[in-house]
């Protein structure tokens, strides 16, 4: 029992630092793939690490009327996102503290990080901060219900809201193709694009553009504060990729009972899947244009409708079984 516990503790610790370590690489892969597809040389794969190191070295310039909330928010946003990312099973499902937060709580943790970021965007009182915050919250009102519907669908299918339990369920019967799960997959991908401020919802490399959302909120940040916010957004990308992998492509993931050998397999499989996912995101971003802000409701509405159909099907099929 204690060996088991030690193993889970180790898995949790490894996971916690693994997501942090791999996050800049994943972003590097996305950028690199995009650059190559546009026939550019592109920045090296490790540019994300260098960016963070550079930002940490720079001094932080705060606006004159920035309040304590503006200074405290990056740290809290980073911590909330990090904890959330550490709770999504990546290479092994037997994480020690996984029980503390189920999927509903995970969505809410990300919601808390988002609310803090939106507040920080309004703190200095600039036009761009407000535009970013208001659009981010509008997108959230579309994406969060869709996400919650997906979560509830999966919870109904697996009979649990614990992520480890859901992951174990999908490891145990990966071949059961269900309509409701397929709908959830599409919906979750759309939500993930929106939450990570990717094209077509938002453009992560834009500046000085009236269409920016995420970048507008963090416009006033610099130096170490910006480093933390950026790191949080990298982590969020890893989190959503991990979530997609854990729910829809869990093969290779070490179940709760696996030994070190299972871990290594799981680790390799997860890293490969994560980087593949990042590369696919790069391909996707190159092949589609950014949407107007007010066309987003249509795009995210698809996620919401799919999520709703998924949960309706889950309800009805489950009702029929019983």
């Amino acid at each position: 029992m204690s060996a088991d516990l030690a193993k889970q503790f180790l898995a949790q610790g490894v996971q916690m630092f693994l997501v942090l370590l791999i996050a800049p690489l994943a972003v590097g892969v996305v950028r690199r793939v995009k650059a190559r597809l546009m026939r550019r040389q592109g920045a090296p794969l490790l540019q994300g690490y260098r960016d963070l190191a550079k930002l940490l070295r720079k001094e932080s310039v705060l606006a004159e009327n920035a309040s304590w909330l503006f200074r405290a928010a990056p740290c809290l946003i980073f911590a909330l996102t990090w904890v959330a990312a550490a709770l999504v099973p990546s290479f092994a499902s037997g994480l020690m503290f996984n029980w503390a937060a189920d999927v509903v709580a995970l969505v809410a943790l990300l919601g808390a990080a988002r609310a803090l970021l939106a507040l920080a965007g309004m703190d200095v009182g600039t036009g761009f901060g407000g535009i970013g915050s208001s659009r981010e919250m509008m997108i959230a009102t579309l994406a969060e219900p869709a996400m919650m519907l997906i979560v509830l669908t999966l919870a109904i299918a697996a009979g649990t809201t614990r992520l480890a339990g859901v992951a174990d369920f999908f490891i145990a019967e990966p071949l059961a193709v269900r309509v409701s799960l397929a709908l959830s997959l599409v919906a979750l991908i759309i939500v993930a694009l929106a939450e990570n401020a990717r094209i077509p919802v938002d453009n992560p490399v834009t500046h000085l553009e009236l269409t920016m959302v995420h970048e507008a909120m963090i416009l006033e940040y610099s130096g170490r504060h910006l480093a933390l916010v950026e790191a949080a957004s990298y982590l969020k990308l890893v989190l959503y990729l991990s979530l997609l992998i854990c729910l829809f492509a869990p093969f290779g993931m070490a179940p709760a009972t696996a030994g070190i050998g299972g871990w290594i397999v799981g680790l390799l499989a997860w890293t490969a899947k994560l980087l593949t996912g990042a590369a696919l995101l790069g391909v996707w971003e190159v092949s589609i244009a950014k949407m107007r802000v007010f066309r987003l409701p249509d795009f995210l509405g698809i996620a919401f409708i799919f999520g709703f159909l998924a949960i309706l099907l889950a309800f009805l099929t489950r009702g029929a079984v019983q």
Partner: protein
Amino acid sequence: MFVQGGALGALAVVAALAAVSGRRFLLAVVYPVTALAAIALGVVDLAIWLGGGGFAAVLPIGLPTIGLHLRLDQLSAFFGVVINGGVLAASLYGMGLDRAKELTPRVEPLFPLFAAAMNLVLIADDAYAFLFSWELMSLTSWAMVVAHHTNAENRRAGHLYLVMAAIGTTALLFAFGGLAGPAGGYAFDTIRTQAPTPLIAALVLATALVGCGSKGGLIPLHAWLPLAHPAAPSHVSALMSGVMTKVAIYGFVRIAFDLLGPPAWWWSLPPIVLGAITAVLGLLYAVFDRDLKRVLAYSTVENVGVIFVALGLALAFRANGQPAAAAVAMAAALLHILNHSWFKSLLFLGAGAVLHVTGRRDLEGMGGLIHRMPRTAVFFLVGALSISALPPLNGFVSEWLLFQSVIAAPALPQSALNFAAPAIGAMLALAAALAAACFVRVYGVAFLGRPRSVEAARAHEVPLVQQIAMGGLALLCILGGLLGALLTGALAPVLKGLVGSELPNAGTGPTPFSLIAFDASRSNYDAVVIALFVAIASVAALLVVHRLSARRTRRGPAWDCGFPDPSPAIQYSASSFSQPLRRVYGAVVFSARETVVMPPPGDLQPARFSVALIDYIWTTLYIAPWRALLRLSERLNALQFLTIRRYLVLMFAALVILLSIAAVTI
């Protein structure tokens, strides 16, 4: 019992003295005495809620054949804790009011009476006592709504409130009439022994929903609430929104779960459907409104909707013999009642503080208050994040339980509920996301940014005792979030009484703070571990960043993409913040239209931008019947100017019709 009676008596005596004498020193003791009485009542309620017991008494006053039945059971005691906590905070806040400016002798005698009336509703054990104290509660609060009667808007709010309260009480009168049956057993004990027929049960349920729903603000009976709650002085608004709506919910719980007997499954549909609509629409109203207190009032409407959804789910599970799921839904409802009373009172007191120092309620004139009211800003932030259901604060605990009970809904056999439950889940999720948007907007516009008016720039912190009132509530919000599992565990006796089961497997989690909905392997939420993790992660991040980074910080002008503008008008305002939401939701629900009037070049007129929203509920359900009534009465007015012969003919015709009816029916 003696404490209870003594405290209620003290409230009445203070009210009477304050009303009669109007002396300054007597007015000054109103709030301290109310606070003490609330503590005494709250302690008694807490002891009975947790320890069991209770008391019952029959006093020989009231209606001749009935007497006055009083009873304090665990359900009443739980609601008593909710109410007296709010009363205590509001009285503390009241002690800090500026006597020269805000203390009107119209409010002070009524405040303790209002508190006493709400407590009386809870311990009433017969229909007469219930309705009497219910009306007392309505009237005292109405009188405080129109305390500043010189303002025409307040008078209008008071008028609408009075009309809606009258409709609500009339509906409750019918509800109790149906419950009492033809024999007229108005004591609750008698009512419990007789099971109504399905038709009577349906009528009682409908009238109870109208009676309690209109008091609680269930859409479409909500129209008075966003006008009346903000019109009252802020600490009274806190009581009305945070606490009086809970008394309304108590009325519904008492009737639907206790007096009406074993439920049928379809009882659950009206509260679920109306509650879900209320939850979403309430927030859509809130997110477009620019008056700080009205936004809070609309958010109360939303929360009442959420509570009704939970109550409806509990009814459905209970009717289908699933006590564990019913306990989860009921725990969500009760916990949300407690949580909402804390954060809504906190937010209204915060709004009162802002109103007091800036003299403004409109969000467009605020901004930057975090610099000038640092403590109030912290407390308000806690309230805003709690009400947005963000972990690890208390709003999320009840939200989490509610989602768990939605997940359990596929096990219900009725296909109507199976179709409704996913829609409910979607609407609740939408409401949660809208709440976050709404309160980011409120906090961002009011407290962050730069001041948009001279008053906001000159704001200052409020007196210490008011800070204590808000700080205490903020602390409760945080503790309620972290210790949500213990709080839910404490609900066990109340749950047993209402749905016949407590939360299954409570307390079997890995730590004592684990909140478990059904069993530990199925769903678990541990706020303390999460909070600890976040704390460790942020401290670690801080340490690492400070070790690696330059640690240099410089203050400079805002960057704003190179175009900073010194005018605070450049900031996003409350209406511009909600513009994206208006385009997405407002266009559908309120037919929102934006018009820009641009003068031709060379014209010195300013350009104008205006937004038109149509409140369809108000126009169809309030204005249209009102107009129809006016038209009808104008027509009937002619009847008052007839000749005597025609009156005699009318009377004769009436007599003939009545006699023929009697002849047919008998």
